[in-house]
């Protein structure tokens, strides 16, 4: 136990020394991790916000059911019970004939002649359904068409099939783009970081060879490099995370107050999770990068 503890301390000291003495390379590694984590982090931020906005948009999708004036109260009630039973449906709002008229007048208030012409209330009552998953609009519409009340109660079922399809195509593409961007950035970061570490270790390959020649085992050589890599990764990631925190606190807040009707906030749990993963990634990449880069200089 005692010797093990001494070793750990020795390796840490070696790693720290090396970090300090090979300052040019340490700086390069820290900077690359910093930039990479910052890039991935901020695109993830952006992707998260865009995701929120798009689902917000998607949630605006609804199905409107116009009722026949001839439907009796009982028919309507039993119909309402049935649509409330549909598992895809999130909310059901009933709009009376009167409310429909009020809405119509509000919408057409620029055309007073038109409104004047209306006598009585020609507008039907209706239900507005919002769905748990807006993508189910087609399915729900189909189910509604097949209800027995279709003939007796329902005048027309209305949902913006085309608009919805357009919307989903667009939001789908946005998601794909962000996924591709994030994946690409992750790979690019990996490549950049491993690149830098490989370069740093390449320029120290003679040193590694000397260590081998004076009897250092591979692990004895590897540990300080590993810890140094971890240190570099950690510092880079911490710097990036701090900057992300600043972005979240200042830029996003500013942004949000400028467009209050958009859901731009990044909730803390997501932020914490992201921070956790970014730090982990920084550390892991630093450690793995140095180990892998070292491997080819650890023969003979």
């Amino acid at each position, binding site marked *: 136990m005692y*010797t093990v503890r001494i070793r750990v301390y020795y390796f840490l000291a070696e790693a720290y020394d090396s970090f300090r003495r090979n300052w040019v390379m340490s700086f390069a590694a820290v900077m690359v991790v910093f930039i990479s984590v910052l890039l991935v982090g901020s695109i993830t931020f952006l992707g998260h916000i865009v995701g929120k906005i798009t689902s917000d948009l998607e949630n605006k999708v609804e199905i409107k059911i116009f009722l026949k004036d001839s439907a009796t109260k009982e028919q309507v009630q039993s119909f309402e019970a049935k649509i409330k039973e549909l598992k895809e449906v999130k909310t059901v709002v009933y709009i009376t004939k009167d409310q429909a008229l009020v809405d119509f007048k509000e919408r057409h208030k620029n055309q007073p002649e038109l409104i004047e012409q209306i006598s009585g209330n020609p507008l039907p009552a209706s239900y507005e359904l919002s769905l748990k998953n807006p993508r189910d609009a087609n399915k729900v519409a189909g189910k509604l068409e097949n209800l027995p009340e279709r003939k007796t109660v329902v005048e027309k079922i209305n949902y913006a099939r085309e608009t919805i399809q357009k919307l989903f195509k667009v939001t789908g593409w946005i998601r794909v783009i962000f996924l591709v961007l994030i994946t690409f950035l992750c790979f690019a970061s990996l490549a950049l970081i491993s690149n830098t570490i490989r370069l740093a270790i390449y320029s120290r390959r003679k040193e590694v060879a000397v260590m081998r*020649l004076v009897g250092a085992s591979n692990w004895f050589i590897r540990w300080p490099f590993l810890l140094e890599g971890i240190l570099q990764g950690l510092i880079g990631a911490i710097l990036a995370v701090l900057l992300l925190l600043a972005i979240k606190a200042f830029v996003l807040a500013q942004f949000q107050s400028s467009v209050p009707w958009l859901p731009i906030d990044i909730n803390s749990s997501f932020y914490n999770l992201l921070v956790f993963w970014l730090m982990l990634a920084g550390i892991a990449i630093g450690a793995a990068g140095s180990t892998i880069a070292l491997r080819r200089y650890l023969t*003979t």
Partner: protein
Amino acid sequence: MMIEAKDVSVTYKESPKPALIDVNLSIDKGEFVFIVGPSGSGKSTFIRLLLRELVPTKGQVTIAGQDIIHLRNWKVPYLRRNIGTVFQDFKLLPNKTAYENVAYALEVINKSKHVIATQVPEVLKLVGLGDKFESYPDELSGGEQQRVSIARAFVNRPPLLLADEPTGNLDPNTSMGIMSILNRINKTGTTVVIATHDREMVDSMRKRVVALADGKVMRDQMRGVYGED
């Protein structure tokens, strides 16, 4: 037998001409051997062979009865910990001070801090570097670097000491000092193998001399001299 080389040939892959050709050589435990020969005759190659820095194209090498050619990769460090080596080009770690360079040879064999703190200064003083503990290799003169390399080679009292041109950068006085240290170490039972050009030294010590030329052993003489001009 400390070292046993049988029919060893080495050909570097970048070069058509073999660097060692059918070398047969046995060195007993506790011997003191000079390897001499003109520049490019294969002295360093022989030393690197014993360190298993390279494997021969042909032949067999054993050290202390152990076949070092078919040694597993992970066992190589354990071989090397029993061999102290002075390299022709010193091979110091550039980011470590003289003290740390010597200490490194003890750290790899897991010596305690206490042992390191007593042995390293002692050995550095022995080679005349008592005032250069904190200097980095590029702040040392050529001879000083060479002496750091020498100090590192014997700080852990290995049973086998290899030295490639250990006095090439040293003045005659310092050289004699180093030689007498190596001699003393040899007296305590350590096998010493020295590749050298230093005629004065070889002639004055009258030890076993193995002469190489063009990769072949030309002469193997007990109590020998450097040889004809």
